[in-house]
């Protein structure tokens, strides 16, 4: 309590600068975007009110469904693997190895690189004719793989680059989770004769569950928002087989300038992400209590 109670005035004054920016560049565009989604809205021409037409069109748009499916594919290809990798890495860096400090840095460092650098690098590593992966495969007597130029491989290749890029992020979260488990639990397990594997299965995994849920939710959201890797590594090809939803939103809005349609699509994606987060939270969070 301040003498002469100026709490109201001070509360407003201290909040105001951020709230102005928040209102202008978060709240307003959020509302404006929703409004736009009911219009045929090109940069030139006059906007025409369409009602729910954009949303109705979406449901009949094959490209929308295929982009959504590719996005879901990417989520399914990356999420479980990244969780397991992050967890295993965290086990390594919280163990007794003298290399654990080095490992933590090395596993994390790719995440520091911007995604376009990472994608550019992996596009080169996976290049069909001169990339080192195929050089190695050919030296071992195999045949070069079309990592990025075949419809069945491209999304997996993008996923591999993503594993390398962000597994270290999940490692950091799991490491923090594991470090919170009290040492006494492990010590009494040792006294009871539990081996390392038993300790992981019966102590670490159950006790890091809150971290696992956090990682899962964050990872699903991050994977749903995939764009840059695809943009750089395949451009959505071959034959649109890796075109993801954000890329379609981007193309619709900024290559074809169908702003209303693009906005409608982004709201559908928003709704999907929200729904999945809520479901995950409700299902996993409750069982945790």
């Amino acid at each position, binding site marked *: 309590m301040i003498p002469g109670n100026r709490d109201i005035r001070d509360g407003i004054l201290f909040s105001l600068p951020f709230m102005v920016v928040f209102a202008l560049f978060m709240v307003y565009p959020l509302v404006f975007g929703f409004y736009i989604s009911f219009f045929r809205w090109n940069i030139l021409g006059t906007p025409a009110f369409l009602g729910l037409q954009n949303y109705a069109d979406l449901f009949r748009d094959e490209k929308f469904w295929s982009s959504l499916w590719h996005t879901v594919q990417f989520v399914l290809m990356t999420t479980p693997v990244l969780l397991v990798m992050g967890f295993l890495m965290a086990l390594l860096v919280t163990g007794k190895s003298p290399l654990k400090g080095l490992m933590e840095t090395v596993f994390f460092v790719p995440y520091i690189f911007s995604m376009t*650098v990472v994608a550019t690098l992996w596009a080169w590593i996976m290049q069909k004719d001169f990339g080192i992966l195929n050089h190695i495969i050919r030296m071992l007597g195999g045949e070069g793989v079309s990592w990025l130029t075949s419809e069945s491989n491209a999304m997996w290749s993008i996923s591999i680059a993503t594993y390398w890029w962000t597994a270290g992020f999940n490692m950091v979260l799991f490491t923090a989770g594991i470090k919170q488990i009290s040492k006494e639990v492990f010590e009494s397990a040792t006294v009871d004769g539990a081996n390392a594997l038993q300790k992981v299965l019966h102590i670490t995994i159950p006790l890091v569950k809150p971290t696992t849920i956090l990682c899962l939710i964050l990872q699903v959201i991050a994977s749903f928002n995939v764009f840059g890797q695809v943009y750089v590594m395949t451009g959505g090809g071959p034959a649109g087989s890796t075109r993801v939803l954000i890329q379609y939103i981007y193309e619709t809005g900024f290559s074809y300038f169908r702003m209303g349609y693009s906005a409608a699509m982004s709201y559908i994606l928003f709704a999907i992400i929200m729904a999945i987060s809520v479901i995950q939270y409700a299902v996993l969070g409750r069982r945790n209590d």
Partner: protein
Amino acid sequence: MAARKKILPRILEILLIAVWVFPLAWMVITSLKYENEVVTRAFTFLPANPTLYNYIEAFGSTYILRWLLNSLIISLVTMAATFILDAPIAYAFAKIRFPGRSILFWLVMAGMMVPFQVLIVPLYLQFNSYGIINTLTAAILPRLAMPIGIFILRQFYEGIPDALEEAAFIDGAGRLRTFTRIILPLGKSAATTVIILAFINAWNDFLWPLIAINDSVRYTITVGIANFQGTHGTEYALIMAGAVIASVPELIFFLIFRRKIIDGIAMTGLKG
């Protein structure tokens, strides 16, 4: 037997480290080769004649230095502005009892749930009408409305005992003075985390600068590198030199703030 038991895991770990570092090494190795050594089926691992030609070429014939400068300006301004905007409101949320505080707080926190791609079309139209599309300002502004910094700072400020503030009030200090002399210095470590994360996120931003900026001179480094492949097609050695140059500032930043960055992520679970 006991010795072997200890050596095998170490060997596996070293192997794992090598695999994880290899792509980065390969980026550097490729950048030191001449193009004709890169684009050939006759594979060489290390450069036959190491050269800095690609670096000279990258600096000389692309805008890469400008892109770095643009990214640096955007990231530094974002960093400073984030602190200036976030710290006062975080303090208000933590310590000032004003009506509507909790509603305002939840409104701001709800902003964390908004995926950025929902904002790209309206923001573009909005900024187009302001006439600031294709400027660095356009790349900066939306980042400043992101509430994650407030979340971190508020949590920290709440932990500061009220007694410290009250003592200052009794000594006749006003709200502003208490904020700048007591809260800000005590919250230094949380503030460092916030501005480091703000810097990294601004530096790595891709989708929005790709949309907001069209002139290749004004690209950020992420957009510049992404478009490198379009303009330099199969000049892989040059592209890798560009990727190395683009990574140096981030790497330096990481080496300086390694602990802070990792702890910051562990604390907030903030992704991209």
